[in-house]
């Protein structure tokens, strides 16, 4: 027994700072946050009255919060499908040997290195909602101006200034920024497929489509799953980009839980802000925990 402790004791000791830090800054704070979310701390005045799940039921019944959840759903669906489509397409094209492949890869990936705040500056301009055929249309800039000047004026739109679909416009810069990342994931996935497998399929007379359908795609499933998890959880947390593009945090059209939490925080409604944080955590956990369990099991095998 002593020998075993002597064997793993020092390791545990080395890990202790991290265990304590993560324990305090992640788990204890989540617990504390949960505690605040069960109180009536709705103003700056300290107040600690326990109200149970009242804040949660109120939030979930609040049409504005429901709208923010709806926005989050649209954002996530558009963001995910956009990055998956572009990411896969680029990886698929670049997977075959080609001249200048490195250049294209580098260009597709570069937006990833820029912060949402910096790219938000230009996307705010690009996504200006004014259109040339509206009153004051001579002030039109951004993509609407570009579309008009290349003869695609009919494609001009309100971008994010629309209560139902506006949030999808926020996904555009997010897709711009992260498609390269998904491409890199898929490229790694493609390259993980042994050439012999493809050869064997070809020798068997597989058509190109069938090769993908039955050989390549199944091999890409884990990569695809990773991409969905990473992009999905980024989308749930997305905050910087919306703050950078939309001037006012309290803009209904593009309200998502993360921005709503900020508005509540500024208004000193700490209990509601904490409750929104918990709801986000639950959403992320639903996505991530099964994935973590899956990978840790896959590793054991």
């Amino acid at each position, binding site marked *: 027994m002593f020998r075993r402790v002597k064997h793993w004791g020092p*390791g*545990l000791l*080395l*890990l202790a*700072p*991290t*265990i304590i830090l*993560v324990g*305090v*800054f*992640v788990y204890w*704070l*989540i617990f504390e*946050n949960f505690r*605040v979310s069960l109180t009536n701390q709705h103003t700056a005045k300290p107040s600690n009255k326990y109200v149970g799940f009242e804040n949660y039921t109120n939030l979930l019944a609040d049409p504005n919060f429901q709208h923010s959840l709806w926005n989050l759903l649209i954002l996530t669906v558009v963001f995910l499908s956009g990055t998956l489509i*572009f990411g896969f397409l680029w990886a698929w*094209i670049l997977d075959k*040997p080609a001249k200048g492949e490195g250049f*294209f*890869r*580098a*260009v*597709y990936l570069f937006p990833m*290195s820029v*912060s949402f*705040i*910096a790219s938000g*500056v*230009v996307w705010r*301009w*690009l996504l200006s909602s004014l259109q040339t055929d509206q009153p004051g249309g*001579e*002030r039109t800039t*951004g993509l609407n*101006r*570009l579309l008009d000047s290349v003869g695609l004026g009919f494609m001009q739109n309100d971008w994010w200034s629309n209560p139902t679909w506006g949030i999808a416009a926020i996904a555009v*810069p997010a897709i*711009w920024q992260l498609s*390269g990342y998904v491409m*890199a994931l898929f490229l*790694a996935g493609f*390259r993980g497929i042994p*050439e012999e497998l*493809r050869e064997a399929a070809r020798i068997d007379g597989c058509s190109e489509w069938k090769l993908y359908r039955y050989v390549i795609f199944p091999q890409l499933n884990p990569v695809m799953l990773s*991409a969905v998890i*990473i992009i999905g*959880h980024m989308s*749930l947390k997305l905050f*910087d980009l919306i703050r*950078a593009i939309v001037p006012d945090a309290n803009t209904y059209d593009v309200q998502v*839980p993360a921005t709503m939490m900020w508005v509540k*925080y500024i208004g000193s409604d700490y209990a509601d802000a904490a409750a929104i*944080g*918990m709801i*986000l955590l639950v959403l*992320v956990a639903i996505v*991530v925990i099964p994935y*973590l369990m899956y*990978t*840790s099991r896959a590793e054991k095998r």
Partner: protein
Amino acid sequence: MATSILERTSSGGTAAGAPNQTKRRINRTLKYALLLLFVIMILIPAYVLFITSFKGSSDADPSRAWLLPETWETAGWAKAWTTLAPALGRTFLLVIPAAIISATLGSINGYVLSKWRFPGANIVFTLILFGMFIPYQAVMIPLTQLMSNIGVPQGIPSLMLLHIVYGLPICTLIFRNYYESVPSELIEAARMDGAGIMRTYTSVIFPVSAPGFVVVLIWQFTSAWNDYLFAAFFSSGRNGPVTIALSFLAGGQLTDYAASMAGALIASVPTLIVYILLGKYFVGGLMSGSVKG
């Protein structure tokens, strides 16, 4: 793992002869046309940033919004530089130590979790890993309280502590995966020689850790550099990092697009340089975000 992730592993390709030269040429043209189209799409925002940053007030005509400046003015750049320069300095002061400290801790953690495992190591690892995914909104309210209770000043000191702590999960993950590929025999040999846990680390593990460190340092550098959420809660324009300074520059009363776009470019230079010079490692960090690497 990191270095070779995107390198071609086989030189294969379409092996069969050349059935139809023209068809292949068309295909190739189509392919490059597509690739170029995507390049243009990706570079549109960069183009706008660049041209607008050089426009002066005389160039404000919206109908010329997409054209090159009539006169190239540097007033926007000057304003952006004077506004952002102090914040840039602070950001380096924040990001470099934060990256080094969290990388060092991550390396030790990865070493323990892959080579010096104890009962329950897997559970501990998964629990640490979960910290990487949590929405920080879920800890923000008590976190502001905690930070004030332990008395860490707002601004760079607060942010440094936060980037170190919340960077630990991914640093640990990257190093753990990296050390999995180091043969255990090396460790065993060192142990036979009577080396303890730290000596094994310094004599065997640390010397082969360079690629892991590069990946982790780059990852931490970029993510801390680009952070806005923590900065928004724990700093202000005068003691905060460059993302905050930029958001104030761009969010002023009358948005000065020349200055804010120049500012966006200035704020992106360090991470872009890292990306251009060390692109492969950068990608390595990205890959490890997907847990399995």
